[in-house]
């Protein structure tokens, strides 16, 4: 087991290097620091001096890959590639184009993100599994058919409508909770309820339908028939046998997103003005802050790869038939 995990971790290294090279190419080759300076200074008529000054101020005044003007290791280390790409591996994200320390920002904004993403994730799984089991229990009936139709209808609605609709209905018409915002400590709860509801409801359609097929797949298997033949009630069969086995595909499907919960949800956070990493990313995109986007790309990839490794480990934990090779 430990050997397997180590091998998986080693395998992650070349992938991270690939991600790193890709972002470097996108951000520095396709789009040179001169271009970046021009965008931030605005307009076409920007003097070369202004560009040089902007690059000086933001630390982009170095050669891309090889600095022949420096002695010794400085030839390699005093370059944009080393400063902005290699340093990502030790989670040194540098400072944003506005001059703020990105790592500091991330470690602060992570928690509001988690405060939304974690409840949405947990409540979501619970609700989706409950609905899916309900449909599977009444399979073939009108309840099942109309439930599936409802799922397809809910899947066909853009997530933006759920957010706008939820804000309008619950905050503006019923005035139950504030429309957006965030507070520290326990006061945050009243700001978090609505985004969590919206997040869970928005996911019902797709997940319920998918989980229902997992349940139905198990229900038709031989061991279920045996259990019924022994005289177990349908509810017992469903909870004791089917649920356990259907949990395997469900678990392995959701484990991959657990690390990504830290990066939050772009849309929920931005609509509800929650100072998490999702809104941080959106703000960076809107203000064209390349440094932050670069950091988030790398962080997101690291978390996703962690999720993949976790998935493989979960597989072996929940399904004894899977052997690690």
């Amino acid at each position, binding site marked *: 087991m430990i050997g397997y995990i180590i091998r998986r971790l080693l395998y992650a290294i*070349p*992938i991270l290097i*690939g*991600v790193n090279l*890709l*972002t470097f190419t*996108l*951000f520095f080759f*396709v*789009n040179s620091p001169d*271009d*970046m300076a*021009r*965008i931030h200074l605005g307009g*076409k008529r920007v003097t070369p001096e202004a560009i040089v000054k902007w690059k000086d101020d933001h630390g982009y005044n170095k050669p891309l890959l090889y600095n022949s003007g420096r002695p010794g290791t400085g030839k390699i280390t005093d370059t944009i590639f080393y400063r902005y790409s290699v340093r990502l591996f030790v989670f040194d994200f540098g400072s944003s184009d506005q001059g703020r320390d990105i790592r500091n920002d991330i470690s602060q904004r992570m928690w509001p993100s988690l405060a939304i993403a974690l409840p949405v994730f947990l409540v979501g799984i619970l609700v989706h599994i409950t609905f899916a089991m309900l449909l599977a229990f009444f399979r073939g009936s009108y309840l099942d058919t109309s439930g599936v139709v409802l799922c*397809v*209808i809910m*899947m*066909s*609605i*853009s*997530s*933006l*409508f759920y957010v*706008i609709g939820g*804000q*309008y209905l619950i905050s503006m018409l019923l005035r139950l909770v504030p429309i957006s915002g965030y507070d520290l400590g326990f006061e945050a709860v009243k700001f978090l309820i609505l985004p969590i509801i919206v997040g869970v409801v928005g996911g019902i359609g797709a997940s319920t339908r998918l989980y229902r097929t997992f349940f139905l797949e198990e229900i038709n298997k031989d061991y279920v028939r045996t259990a019924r033949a022994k005289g177990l009630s349908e509810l017992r069969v469903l909870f004791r046998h089917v649920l356990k086995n259907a949990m395997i595909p469900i678990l392995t499907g959701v484990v991959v997103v657990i690390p*990504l919960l830290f*990066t939050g949800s*772009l*849309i929920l956070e*931005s*609509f509800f003005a929650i100072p998490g990493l999702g809104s941080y*990313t*959106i703000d960076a*995109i*809107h203000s*064209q802050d*390349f440094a932050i*986007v*670069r950091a*988030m*790309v790398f962080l*997101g*990839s690291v978390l*996703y*790869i962690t999720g*993949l490794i976790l998935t493989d480990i979960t597989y072996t934990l929940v399904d004894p038939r899977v052997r690690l090779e």
Partner: protein
Amino acid sequence: MNSMPFQPEILWTDFLIFVLIGSFLVFIVYTLRHEHLRVPWRQVARRPMAMASMVILLAYVAVGLMDSIHFRPLQEGQNPEAPVYSNEVLSLLDKAAMPLRARTEKTYSAPFAMQAYSKETVEYPDGGHARENPRLLYGGAHLQDPSERAADIVRRAGTATLAALGLWSLLVVGFLLSWRQSHEPLMQTVRRLVRGKGEFPWRAVLITSGILIILVLNAVYLSLYYHIFGTDQVGQDVFYKSLKSIRTGLVIGTLTTLVMLPFAALFGIMAGYFRGWVDDVIQYVYTTLSSIPSVLLIAAAILTLQAYIATHPESFTSATERADIRLLFLCLILGVTSWTSLCRLLRGETLKLREVDYIQAARALGASHLSVMARHILPNVMHIILIAVVLDFSGLVLAEAVLSYVGVGVDPTMDSWGNMIVSARLEMAREPLVWWSLAAAFVFMFSLVLAANLFSDAVRDAFDPRLRK
């Protein structure tokens, strides 16, 4: 030299749409010639839900195609010997909807409104003035008194509905005559249709087309006199904007798949077929690409494109062209982020297929790798590709809205449902509420995505061997 009244203009996405239609036609001909492909399609065609959805999808496609034939009109008042064409690129849809396009108000107005949304100081002929909602320039301008409005709308809707029913009965009669078996009494044909007998669900098709014809005729006729979905902030007709958004949605849903398909198919099959280092390299590439969160990868790519456009303004002659390049680029980058899952599926299937007897036999008989992959493996993974294509469509249409919200979607000047929703976010905070842009985007987007979802379900059920009974 004789000058044409217009100059045809083929945008990049137009060109690719024509390529897409071409390959679609080839695909249809190929399917019709092969019995084993006709069978699952017939199964799709037997589902009433799928056929009803297809009618709606076809209506969308028709509007999208009309909006994909572009030209530059001749500038007026020019010397006919040396024609100068306008900088503005128009489409057939623009031409057809010229009344909608040209009749812009000053600012917001509600659906079917006769008065503007915001108050203005109006001067009376007798010298006095007051703050009130002024009459619209075009919406309901044919009426003298606002109190006549309800009656006028009902009367016009009635006329349009009657015309639609007339048109629909022509359609039904035409269908009955062609569907009638020889020497069958006509009443019996009618009875067969009403009871839904026969192999294909013609009843569902005819009912859907009937509803569609009624809605379309009503919308078209009423939109000549009113802004049926209101107007937006700069006074543009929202119904017209929603129609224009259809093309954007369809382009993203289809072209993305078109551009990624060759890569996914080639790499997926190669990885599974050759195994060894080819497999390792391809797997490495797609794991790397898929490990970058797709929104961020798209954001990074679009930011770089924006920077390129900002620093090279001379490469683009018109705003339409610039928006079109961005749309195409968005399709490309969405394709890059979405090919990996299909590639993985194809690799797995090919791994299984390459051990099958007939492939071994083909190799033993001296067939080259290329011909084995093209003639034996590709046809046998076709169902996976097809299912992926139809399932991806609705997800891509929905993704457009989210990406536009994040600010990395289509060009802000381009009409799209995503852009309409983005602007609706501020409109919802106004008092009184400006809800109609959001409602229009919802209606148009929802019906397209729902129809696509229902249709793709039927296709998956028919083509997925695991689901076959």
